[in-house]
């Protein structure tokens, strides 16, 4: 991202190194090839075209200079001396420079276009972020304000209703703030996962604890035993990831549908997986591609929420060098699978 936003004309040391390396390779190869010096001149030209499209203008020109010098010195007879080029040779040398300029210019135009698209995208993202966050923050705040103003005068029945509204607003604000904090941690790059041995059962228990009564009235089946091995992961990140999946399952499926949590070691013992499955409507096919993108929300999803949950899950898993995937259930419903690379627990020699 940062790299692609640099305009190529700024160049950098890496570009110069690339140019020098390519020229040196062509020269070395040419030395052993039984080709005429004119044919080799075109090989240099080819090398200039290829490199110029990938580097900035200055390195492209350097590529042309190096190539002409190398060609003249090593291959134009008499070999191993610089000679005054004849007319057709000079013509080829001029073409080197023209090609280098044109190619690098084309490349820089392409970079500029890319950059504009990227900036437009990020602008759009920011607008979406501020718009949505503003809305999401103001909704619970308005509820607070209205409820508090009415609490004084309301009768008992109305009061009970207000308290219920306040509770919902508090929960919304809480999860919004915690999601935004998680997102900030992810994007600011301060997230340093601390991998340690984890037990799937503990992680799920902790995730359930943190969701509290948001899972009440739901049937949650845990399908794994104490015999499962431990695996390396960052416990708090895993906990939050599992929490998001459980919360999603609880929110997007009818009360009657059960939520199943499973954990297993993959058949080849290379991965440890934790799955959260439900019997809900599943994810519509057109949604699957952008399921884990930021601010991505189902068109039929209930109002409220920013569509951050799954993007946080993906970010947290990636930070631990794991991943998350979605599979449609066999009988409808969704299956989300968290996957971590697995290596066995070191043999515990008693201390």
């Amino acid at each position, binding site marked *: 991202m940062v790299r692609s936003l640099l305009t190529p004309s700024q160049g950098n040391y890496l570009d110069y190194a690339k140019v020098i390396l390519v020229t040196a390779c062509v020269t070395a190869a040419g030395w052993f090839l039984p080709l005429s010096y004119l044919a080799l001149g075109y090989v240099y030209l080819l090398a200039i075209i290829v490199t110029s499209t990938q580097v900035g203008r200055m390195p492209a020109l350097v590529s042309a200079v190096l190539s002409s010098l190398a060609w003249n010195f090593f291959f134009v007879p008499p070999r191993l001396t610089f000679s005054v080029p004849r007319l057709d040779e000079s013509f080829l040398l001029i073409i080197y420079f023209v090609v280098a300029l044109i190619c690098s210019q084309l490349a820089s135009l392409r970079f500029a276009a890319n950059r504009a698209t990227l900036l437009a995208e990020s602008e759009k993202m920011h607008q979406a972020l501020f718009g949505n966050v503003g809305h999401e923050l103001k909704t619970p705040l308005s509820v607070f304000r209205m409820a508090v103003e009415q609490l004084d005068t309301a009768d008992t029945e109305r009061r009970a209703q207000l308290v219920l509204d306040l509770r919902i607003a508090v929960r919304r604000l809480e999860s919004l703030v915690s999601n935004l904090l998680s997102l900030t941690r992810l994007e600011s790059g301060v997230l340093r996962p601390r991998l340690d041995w984890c037990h799937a059962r503990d992680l799920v228990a902790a995730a359930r*604890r943190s969701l509290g009564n948001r899972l009440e009235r739901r049937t949650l089946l845990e399908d794994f035993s104490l*015999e499962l091995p431990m695996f390396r992961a960052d416990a708090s990140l895993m906990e939050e990831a599992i929490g998001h999946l459980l919360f999603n399952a609880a929110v997007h499926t009818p009360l009657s549908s059960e939520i199943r949590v499973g954990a297993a070691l993959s058949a080849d013992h290379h991965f440890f997986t934790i799955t959260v499955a439900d019997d809900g409507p599943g994810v519509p096919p057109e949604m699957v591609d952008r399921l884990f993108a930021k601010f991505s929300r189902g068109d039929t999803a209930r109002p409220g929420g920013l569509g951050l949950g799954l993007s946080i899950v993906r970010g947290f898993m990636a930070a631990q060098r794991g991943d998350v995937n979605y599979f449609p259930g066999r009988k409808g419903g969704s299956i989300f699978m968290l996957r971590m690379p697995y290596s066995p*627990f070191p043999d515990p020699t008693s201390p």
Partner: protein
Amino acid sequence: MNSEGKFDIMVVDDEEQIRRLVRLTLEESGFGVREAYSGTIFLGEAAVHTPDLVILDLGLPDVPGSEVLRALRMFSSVPVLVLTVLSDEANRIQALEAGADDYITKPFSTGELIARIRAILRRARPSGTSVFNFGPIEVDLEKGRVLKAGRQVKLTAMEFKLLRMLVINRDKVLTHQNILSSIWGPKAIDHTNYLRIYMMHLRRKLGEDVESAGHFQTESGVGYRFVSEPLKGA
């Protein structure tokens, strides 16, 4: 206890709103409450008249929470419940190492707060017996024996030591370092894998029913807590 025979709880937080709400909640549940808005004021008051329990916010403006704890521990072993914010594991561990008994993350519910306080106060009272029961399990600390529904559970010496430590410190978070250094000695504090494997064996031996009751809680990245009376369904 204060003059009215109520438990004397001190709330240390710089946010007036939090102090007031916690005070109302606690008073409603029959506790006596004193407030302090800074670490220095709290330490001064606590030195004159030690409360039965302290609720300490780790984010005080004048002195870092862990410093307050260290200073407090020089003259008192009063139980301390610290208030922390989410994703602040390092501070949390520091506070537990500095002598806090438990922590609760903001924002917390009043029910949770009261439950934690009751658990801490329960533990602070000496039970006078060396036999401890939870679910179908009976642990005899003196005889070093563990029974499950009347039948002996065979534990290794290390497993028993671990269970004993957890049971003695019930309803309190024990950090990995805490457990490792007191059971395996100070040289072992980095070997969390020993602890994990013994913990796993212990849980396995006590059985699936005890495990699902939720007596043993793993505090991610921090340590373990033995819960004497786990909430149903939590």
